[in-house]
């Protein structure tokens, strides 16, 4: 029963799976991105208070969501790696970091660009903004820690512990707007009762979130493949791969 799982955890097998999956994630992501952007920037009406300025949510909300999703993925795979000593889990975690850092950076910058005209300031030390900035530093810390430790096994374990420790920040980011008085508005999407966003503005946002999700997975596949190749560069299957395809690696 666990056979498929063990098979998936074998680096050469996963390398092949990731290679097959990658285009199936990447191209749909691009198509959805085009649909979502057209829907959000052209079809959706202007907001009753914010005018056209609100349209930045079509980039801001998906990147913010992905910045947290990627961190949880990194923390969970780090925990799996630490407990089961699974190399592939560490490959996934290490591949998550730059992707998550990029999403966090986008979330912070698009938020600042929106905040300047709407709130009247680029940045405030508000609980939501501050915890999101901490998330960015967690990603950077994770990457620097890996860089600093030359031995892969040591780097995996140390950075894995950091990823698990940092995961407490995720609920803090999410609930910051409810626990404390905050300048940042509360969540519009996860409110189940009445949707806080009108339908014609909502669907492009959902399409954008799905597009970002697929894009993240596509980038993750690329990242994992690079991690696997780097770690297994002396293995025979990598040598054979080079012989047969030439351009891989």
């Amino acid at each position, binding site marked *: 029963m666990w056979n498929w799982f063990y098979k998936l955890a074998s680096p050469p097998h996963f390398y092949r799976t990731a290679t097959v999956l990658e285009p199936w994630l990447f191209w749909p992501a691009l198509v959805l991105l085009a649909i979502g952007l057209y829907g959000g920037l052209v079809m959706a*009406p*202007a*907001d*009753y*208070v*914010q005018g056209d*300025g*609100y349209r930045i*949510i079509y980039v801001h909300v998906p990147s913010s969501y992905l910045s947290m999703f990627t961190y949880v993925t990194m923390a969970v795979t780090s*925990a799996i790696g*630490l*407990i*089961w*000593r699974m190399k592939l889990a560490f490959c996934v975690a290490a591949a998550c970091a730059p992707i998550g850092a990029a999403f966090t950076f986008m979330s912070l910058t698009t938020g600042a660009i929106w905040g300047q*005209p*709407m*709130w*009247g*300031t680029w940045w*405030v*030390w*508000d*609980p939501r903004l501050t915890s999101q900035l901490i998330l960015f530093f967690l990603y950077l810390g994770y990457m620097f820690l890996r860089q600093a430790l030359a031995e892969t096994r040591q780097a995996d374990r140390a950075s894995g*512990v950091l990823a*698990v*420790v940092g*995961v*407490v920040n995720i609920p*803090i980011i999410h609930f910051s707007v409810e*626990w*404390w*008085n*905050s*300048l940042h*508005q*509360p*969540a*519009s999407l996860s*409110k189940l009762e*009445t949707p*806080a*966003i*009108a339908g*014609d*503005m909502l669907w492009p946002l959902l399409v954008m979130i799905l597009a970002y999700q697929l894009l993240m997975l596509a980038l993750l596949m690329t990242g994992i493949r690079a991690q696997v190749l780097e770690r297994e560069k002396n293995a025979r299957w990598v040598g054979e791969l080079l012989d047969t395809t030439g351009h891989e690696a």
Partner: protein
Amino acid sequence: MTPRRQRMLAVVVIFVGVSIAATLLLRALDMNTMYFFGPEEVLTGKAPLDKPFRLGGLVVNGSFKREPGSLEATFEVTDNVARVTVSYTGVLPDLFTEGQGMVANGRLREDGVFVAAEVLAKHDENYMSPEIAKMLDKKGHPGSPMDTLVEDPT
């Protein structure tokens, strides 16, 4: 206990320990992490009145006054329980309007007027087109943005 069990336990202990530490830390900080205080907290003395602090709330409909040719504005801010009058000289952000939220940084003067050095607009989580907003407004729908506003608290 197998080594794997031990490692599992270690990861769980780290996770639980850090969670407890974070919870305690945030609880201990409590008031210090308050980004702003509402009018009720100001009037009951929970806000730090001896130093600058941030005041947040909704701008009461019809309370905004500005002398023509002057940048000095006064308006009332409410949390639907209490009201505080704010005085501010300067340019207000685009989203600042009566009935919307705002956060002001400043101090409370002896006469109970909050003198703001900076005013930021706080937006709510509702997004809709102007047409729908107008329609909801006419019907007096409870979700209406113009309507959730501020009944007179007095």
